[in-house]
């Protein structure tokens, strides 16, 4: 009888730990993954799906009247804009100008995507991409506007960056598809991220904590969110918020066109849903320009040719065909 009690005690201890770990897996660990392979590394985009000169690549092809030769600018960009700058290469660059090597995740290959050093296409995403353009490792960076730290880094290096708006995109907020809340006001969202509104019941939802999810500092969406918050600082988050219903933010095409998760839904903002029609009409209130960025002292003669083409009807047709909104 004593042995039975002892074994029961041991099993109870194991069961308590198992229950804790299972709960943590359900609420937290099991939800950690990237958008494309399911692994936990930061793979924000499956670059292999957007490689130029591959017939199966998901790129916008137009009948371009311009073809670049000579010193080809090295293009880089944010994850959300890989389809755009890869399409630029597809339409304007000669075959063989891109060498993709794939690769595994490492400190040198942060996104698990490698291009040969002499490839005209690179992928550093926003945080590393802004550093690369300032350092002169790339010629044109495609992305959202820079963060204060990124501007400061350029100033410290004595580099002037030129920002050319080439398209527009909506900044959107999203929640799990099962969340009954379909829309919020801008002030309500600021209240959430400032820590002043912490329960969905105050917003017409269920009695459940709100988990406001942020992105890494310096990413395009985080920089845009900081601009949206204005003077209001991000509030501290309770650790128990992890068990609550989350809200996050991103750019529309990245969420809807590239990741395409049917388990999340975009929220209407101030009563306006971020549909393509509402964005184009100007009814949706949060629409930002995205840029092609280059060093003012970069004398590559193909840069103005490429930019002139991007802003031409052909180039803007390509922007629209990728799923973004033309700048004009």
């Amino acid at each position, binding site marked *: 009888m004593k042995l039975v009690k002892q074994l029961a005690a041991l099993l109870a201890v194991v069961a308590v730990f198992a229950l804790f770990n299972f709960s943590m897996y359900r609420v937290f660990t099991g939800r950690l993954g990237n958008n494309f392979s399911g692994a936990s590394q*930061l793979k924000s985009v499956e670059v292999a799906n957007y490689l130029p000169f591959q017939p199966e690549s998901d790129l916008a092809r137009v009948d371009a009247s311009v073809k670049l030769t000579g010193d080809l600018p090295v293009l880089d960009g944010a994850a959300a804009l890989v389809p755009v700058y890869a399409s630029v290469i597809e339409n304007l660059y000669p075959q063989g100008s891109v060498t993709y090597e794939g690769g595994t995740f490492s400190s040198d290959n942060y996104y698990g995507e490698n291009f040969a050093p002499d490839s005209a296409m690179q992928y550093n995403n926003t945080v590393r991409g802004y550093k690369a353009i300032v350092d002169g490792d790339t010629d044109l960076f495609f992305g959202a506007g820079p963060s204060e730290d990124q501007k400061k880094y350029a100033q410290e290096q004595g580099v002037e960056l030129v920002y050319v708006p080439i398209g527009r995109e909506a900044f959107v907020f999203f929640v799990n598809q099962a969340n009954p809340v379909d829309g919020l006001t801008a002030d309500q969202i600021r209240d959430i991220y400032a820590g002043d509104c912490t329960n969905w019941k105050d917003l017409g939802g269920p009695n459940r904590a709100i988990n406001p999810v942020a992105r890494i500092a310096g990413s395009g969406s985080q920089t845009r969110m900081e601009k949206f918050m204005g003077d209001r600082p991000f509030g501290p988050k309770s650790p128990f918020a992890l068990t609550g219903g989350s809200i996050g933010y991103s750019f529309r095409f990245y969420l809807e066109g590239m990741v395409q998760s049917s*388990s*999340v839904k975009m929220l209407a903002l101030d009563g306006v849903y971020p549909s393509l029609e509402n964005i184009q009409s100007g009814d949706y209130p949060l629409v930002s320009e995205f840029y092609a960025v280059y060093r003012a002292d970069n004398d590559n003669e193909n840069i103005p040719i490429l930019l002139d083409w991007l802003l031409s009807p052909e180039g803007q047709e390509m922007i629209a065909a990728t799923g973004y909104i033309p700048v004009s």
Partner: protein
Amino acid sequence: MKDRTFYRVLAAVVALCTVLTLAHVAYGAWAYQNSSIVQFIAKEPW
């Protein structure tokens, strides 16, 4: 099982479970920094 033996086994089991749980927590903290918020929200239990 003698009491002394039982307590040794109990201590070993608790130690092992604690190490595994801490490893789980450490993995979660690392993976959270490297994961997509879209997936985090998409897989949310409701």
